[in-house]
């Protein structure tokens, strides 16, 4: 029986579920929060080592460090160099690590370490202005040679990219071209390429890249050519003319700034070593969200103590879901609608078996005591109050007893919701008097069964992970609970309860 008035309801529920799931997927993609708890991500730890001989005086060493290398994001940076003042200065294409010290004697070694994660996020353009090709003056006979090569290349190309490829191809030192031989005689091929391209009106510059291979030491940077195609910088291999960055290539330096300057030292060199590490993806996501401050990561902003409370709170909807499922679809009777959820939460803290034993013990002792209380003919409120106090006594007694017997779990029994237990005992004992032991056992085991199911669901590490890191998934749970509220079919237990009807069928 479908009622037209329910269609908006279903649409709303679907929207709710859709919103929850898509928000979770979006946050997974955008912030890199992993779906699974134990997921690991590769991280490159790169160490730059600077060596120089000091001139026995003050020293300023400054190393160009990456800011937003394409294909990677930086998750941590640190310098290790005893006695040196250290800071990272500058932005927008020239970010430098600077070491300073007043009196320096002898050979020196400085270290700079950074961790990089591969990321496919687009980097924003850092430069405020569009780069322009700068003018270059050539003397004869180079001027003619350059003009000829550029004319040749321009003829066979249509875009800045193809022009660059052509120039690189023509400048390849294979001796076939006289002009090339003339120009390349001074050796530094890459700065020549930069000059020529700028001359041709294409903004060009050099960049230094580092090939990332696990556990390599003393690596040097490799030069790359970059041109600006009107909207962004493109990288070319200056030897092969191949466009784009190879995998695992980290651009350490881009632009015209020098890689290393040492004032007050000679013989300065920089070399790199690297290591492939793995870190939990979740840790990575939190680190990244902190560093770029736009990635709001929910509860990680809270103090640890609040966090662990929220962890527990956020598990509650799962328990409510289990109760709704068990009651509406299966048809298990429990004493008190949500008592099982609270018990399950207590189990999460005490662990299952000790929790079960303690709970059954407390309720059983409580029922005995309540038997005595009922013979006193007290008013209800004072009886419940007395029961609460008794429950606290029993719990305290069990804790001390457990502790002396060497069970640490005795202590955590205090997580049981005392008031709820007192009410449970009261209800059970009335049930006992009026409906008999059978009903008490049915409802008692029903409640415990539901509590254990809820506990099992809540104690899966994945549930804790998902509920805490993707709180929006609770919208999905909410939607499912709302949907269950619309279920008008038979409960599982009804198929048994109504089974005598078979004779009338």
């Amino acid at each position: 029986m479908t009622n037209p008035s329910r269609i908006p309801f279903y649409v709303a529920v679907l929207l709710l579920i859709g919103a929850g799931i898509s928000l979770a997927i979006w946050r997974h993609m955008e912030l890199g929060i992993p779906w699974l708890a134990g997921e690991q991500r590769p991280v490159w730890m790169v160490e730059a080592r600077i060596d120089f001989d000091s001139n026995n005086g003050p020293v300023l060493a400054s190393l160009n460090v990456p800011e937003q290398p394409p294909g990677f994001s930086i998750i941590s940076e640190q310098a290790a160099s005893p006695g040196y003042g250290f800071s990272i200065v500058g932005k927008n294409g020239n970010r430098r690590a600077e070491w300073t010290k007043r009196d320096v004697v002898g050979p020196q070694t400085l270290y700079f370490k950074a961790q990089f994660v591969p990321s496919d996020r687009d980097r924003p353009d850092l430069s405020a202005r569009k780069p322009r090709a700068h003018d270059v003056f050539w003397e004869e006979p180079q001027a003619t040679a350059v003009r000829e090569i550029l004319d040749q290349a321009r003829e066979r190309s249509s875009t800045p990219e193809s022009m660059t490829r052509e120039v690189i191809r023509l400048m390849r030192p294979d001796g076939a071209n006289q002009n090339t031989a003339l120009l390349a005689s001074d050796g530094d091929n890459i700065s020549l390429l930069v000059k020529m391209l700028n001359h041709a009106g294409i903004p060009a510059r050099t960049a230094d890249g580092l090939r990332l291979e696990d556990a390599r030491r003393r690596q040097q940077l490799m030069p790359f050519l970059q041109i600006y195609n009107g909207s962004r910088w493109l990288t070319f291999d200056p030897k092969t003319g191949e466009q784009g960055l190879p995998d695992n290539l980290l651009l350490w330096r881009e632009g015209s700034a020098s890689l290393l300057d040492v004032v007050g030292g000679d013989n300065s060199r920089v070399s790199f070593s690297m290591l492939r590490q793995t870190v939990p993806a979740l840790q990575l996501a939190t680190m990244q969200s902190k560093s770029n401050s736009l990635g709001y990561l929910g509860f990680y902003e809270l103090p640890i103590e609040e966090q662990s409370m929220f962890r527990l709170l956020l598990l509650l909807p799962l328990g409510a879901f289990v109760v709704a499922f068990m009651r509406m679809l299966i048809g298990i009777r429990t004493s008190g609608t949500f008592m099982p959820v609270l018990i399950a939460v207590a189990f999460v803290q005490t662990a299952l078996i000790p929790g079960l034993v303690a709970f059954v013990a407390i309720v059983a002792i409580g029922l005995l005591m309540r038997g005595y209380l009922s013979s006193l003919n007290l008013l209800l409120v004072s009886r419940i109050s007395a029961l609460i106090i008794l429950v606290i006594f029993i719990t305290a007694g069990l804790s001390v007893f457990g502790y002396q017997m060497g069970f640490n779990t005795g202590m955590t029994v205090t997580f049981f919701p005392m008031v709820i237990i007192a009410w449970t005992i009261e209800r059970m004992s009335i049930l006992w008097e009026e409906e008999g032991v059978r009903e008490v056992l049915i409802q008692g085991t029903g409640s415990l069964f539901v509590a254990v199911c809820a506990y099992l669901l809540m104690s899966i590490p994945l549930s804790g992970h998902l509920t805490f890191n993707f709180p929006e998934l609770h919208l999905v749970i909410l939607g499912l609970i709302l949907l269950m509220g619309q279920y008008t079919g038979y409960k599982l237990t009804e198929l048994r309860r109504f089974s005598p009807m078979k004779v009338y069928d």
Partner: protein
Amino acid sequence: MGWISPRALNRLGMLNMNRRNVDYIARYNERASYPLVDNKLKTKLVVAEYGVKTPRLLQVVREQHEISHFREMAEDLAGFAIKPAKGSGGKGITVITGRDGDEYIKGSGVRVNAGYLERHLTNILAGLYSLAGTPDVAIVENLVQSEPTLARYSHQGVPDIRIVVFRGYPVMAMLRVATTASDGKANLHQGAIGVGLDLGSGRGLNAVQFNRPTLLHPDTGLALENIQISDWELMLEMAARCYEATGLGYMGVDLVVDANEGPLLLELNARPGLAIQMANGQGLLPRLKTIEKLKRPHFTPQERAEFAMATFAARA
């Protein structure tokens, strides 16, 4: 016992718990009317305005200090019943059927003194028997003396007749009689017998105990199918009239037949149970749908009762 397939249940038109809650109770019963039926005192007062008789109210105990008046009032009464106004499922009901000097004799034959009854009243006031433990009031009402032809069938206690009324139309009825197993209480799940009644005639159709069909009363050995309720049309009309009194579209009306006063309303229930279907060996859904499909509902309780008698009579 085994299992029954959902398809078979659908064929029988069995109403289930979820559907009762969503499609009938939630849709046809207004929340605002609940207090009328959840409070037996209010029920008594409101149905009286619509000409539905209930056991005569002897005293209402609202405060602890009023309990002392109870002793004076009960002094020369032979039989009465003490009930929590907001109780349910028979909880907190004490039926006194006779006196022996200073002592009161309960329906079960146990003798108690006035102090016991006063403590019982105290418990009721404190809310021991009310839902959620809220404070309550106690009602003292006249003892219902069951009509002898019906009383024969019951082990102790008063047999009561449950009629499910949907939008003012009686749709199904059953008689509940206590047994030794049910300890004199007319609660089906405690072992009372439910006898499905033919709406057309008020005759017994089919009986169940513990959900299983039975033919004879286990204590008295009487054949249950021969039961015939007297004043049947009047009872259906009383049940139909409760719709006007409460406005509840889907409810259970509990009636008893008193030897002196005839049919009396005992209580109303906004969430009537499903066991009536098993006592009748029929599902409620087809009947409920018949009523839902009615283009022009009847206006008077009498018309509705007649319609139900004609439409839902057992086909011989």
